[in-house]
């Protein structure tokens, strides 16, 4: 283990195998299988649509699509980070008997969630087309946006996986924290609709929550059919790469001690 990414690359097949194993275990235990991945955002879309269009009218056109566009990348981030965080502490046996580069564990969890995300995204796009919501050339930037949210999730996941080895209830706190962050991310609302006297909120969210920028980009492309705000693309890419490098560095500097610390 010499501390480079090429080391992890050598174990790419293990990452893939572990991710597939995860997906298989998840889906073989439920008849509906993949539909669960799709069912979750659809369910929330219906609930939120009911609450915010029927109970509290908000005047946003096509509100279900508005939510869905931001919900899918959020769900991916949420699941990927939760999975990656417990990936190392949950693999005590393996870590004590095998010497593979430790980062393949969080990588495989994120990959499994990414595959889910990809399938859900494609299904939603097909559904939107069928229902005549329309598509457009800006959708071509989706792979780039998906790459950004993946790199960001990996970085956060690596960081939290490292912490979770020492402080084992990090994963418990994380569940609560992510639940709060969901509402501090413009998923069921958008920042440009926040009332003028609460602009400070929008600024804080934009600055401190990279997911805000990321879901906004997804919404621009899927919901508004616009080309993404390129300066925001640049900014979120930069933040994601920095977080990833930080996460990878921290993880790698501690991973040689994981086996004995668990």
């Amino acid at each position, binding site marked *: 283990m010499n501390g480079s990414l090429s080391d992890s690359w050598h174990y790419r097949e293990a990452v893939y195998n572990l991710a597939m194993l995860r997906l298989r275990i998840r889906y073989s235990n439920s008849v509906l299988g993949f539909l669960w991945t799709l069912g979750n955002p659809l369910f929330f879309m219906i609930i939120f649509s009911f609450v915010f269009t029927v109970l509290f009218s908000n005047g946003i056109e096509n509100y279900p699509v508005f939510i869905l566009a931001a919900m899918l990348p959020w769900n991916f981030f949420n699941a990927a980070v939760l999975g990656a965080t417990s990936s190392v502490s949950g693999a005590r046996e393996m870590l004590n008997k095998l*010497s593979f580069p430790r980062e393949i564990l969080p990588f495989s969890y994120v990959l499994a969630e990414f595959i889910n995300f990809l399938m859900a995204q494609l299904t939603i796009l097909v559904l939107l087309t069928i229902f005549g919501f329309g598509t457009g050339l800006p959708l071509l930037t989706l792979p780039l946006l998906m790459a950004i949210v993946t790199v960001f999730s990996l970085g956060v996941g690596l960081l939290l996986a490292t912490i979770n080895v020492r402080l084992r209830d990090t994963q418990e706190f994380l569940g609560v924290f992510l639940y709060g962050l969901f509402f501090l991310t413009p998923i069921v609302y958008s920042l440009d609709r926040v009332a003028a006297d609460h602009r400070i909120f929008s600024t804080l969210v934009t600055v401190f929550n990279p997911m805000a920028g990321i879901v906004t980009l997804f919404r621009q492309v899927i919901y508004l059919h616009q080309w993404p705000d390129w300066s925001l693309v640049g900014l979120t890419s930069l933040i994601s790469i920095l977080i990833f490098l930080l996460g990878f560095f921290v993880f790698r500097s501690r991973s*040689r001690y994981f086996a004995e610390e668990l």
Partner: protein
Amino acid sequence: MLNVEEHPPVIAQPAVKGTPCIEVNNVSKRFWMERNQASTVSGFFINLLNRNKKPRRSFMAVRDVTLHVYPGETIGLIGANGSGKSTLLKMIAGIYAPTEGTVAVRKRLVSLLELGTGFNSELTGRENVYLNGSLLGRTRKEMQAVFDPIVEFAGVREFIDAPLKHYSSGMVVRLGFAVASHVDAEIMLLDEIFAVGDDQFQRKCFQRLHEFQAEGRTLILVSHALPTIQQLCSRAMWLSRGKVMDEGPTDQVVGAYKTYIERLS
């Protein structure tokens, strides 16, 4: 226990020298009995406030061990439980990082510390072979080349596409040894693998290890079974409480160890 007389004698091993393929230099390993911080987020904050902390207790599992292994050698590590031999093996395998000293491994290595680690009971035997191979850092292509010999050795041909949960424990163990002993590697580390499996399987393992030696590859064995060590190893190291008590030709070291045990009892 296995009847040693049935087996071929130790294959004459090359007079060692050249560059060592494993170099363990003045290695020590300290384990902490308890964490310096409680292992929870809340405990972490309580600890920050708590001023009179208890000092951490630790123990040295391995103390100042130096071992140079040359290509083609078979080394046996012996000693009582808790003597540090498995810890030493894990440092060579890259699972533990040494507290002091350095470990350098210059050839491709495979370690078999427990049969069947990394197997998943939901996957078929075939899928497990490839999963295990990938966890050992081998590509699918590399595994395809040795797939048939693995299945042959493990004797699970008719069950290879059945989920592992339907295997007997003996079959799982055989498959585990088959994978580890067939992947491409110049060095193999084994920890007490002879404690499991029936006589017939043990005999097969021996045969496989002899093949390994005949091909000029390097082995390090940890075992309590002194006849096994004597039969396979050209050199042995005896550890006690983490320290090297004796090191040299197997018969000499095993003899010294036996004398020591007899004196104790």
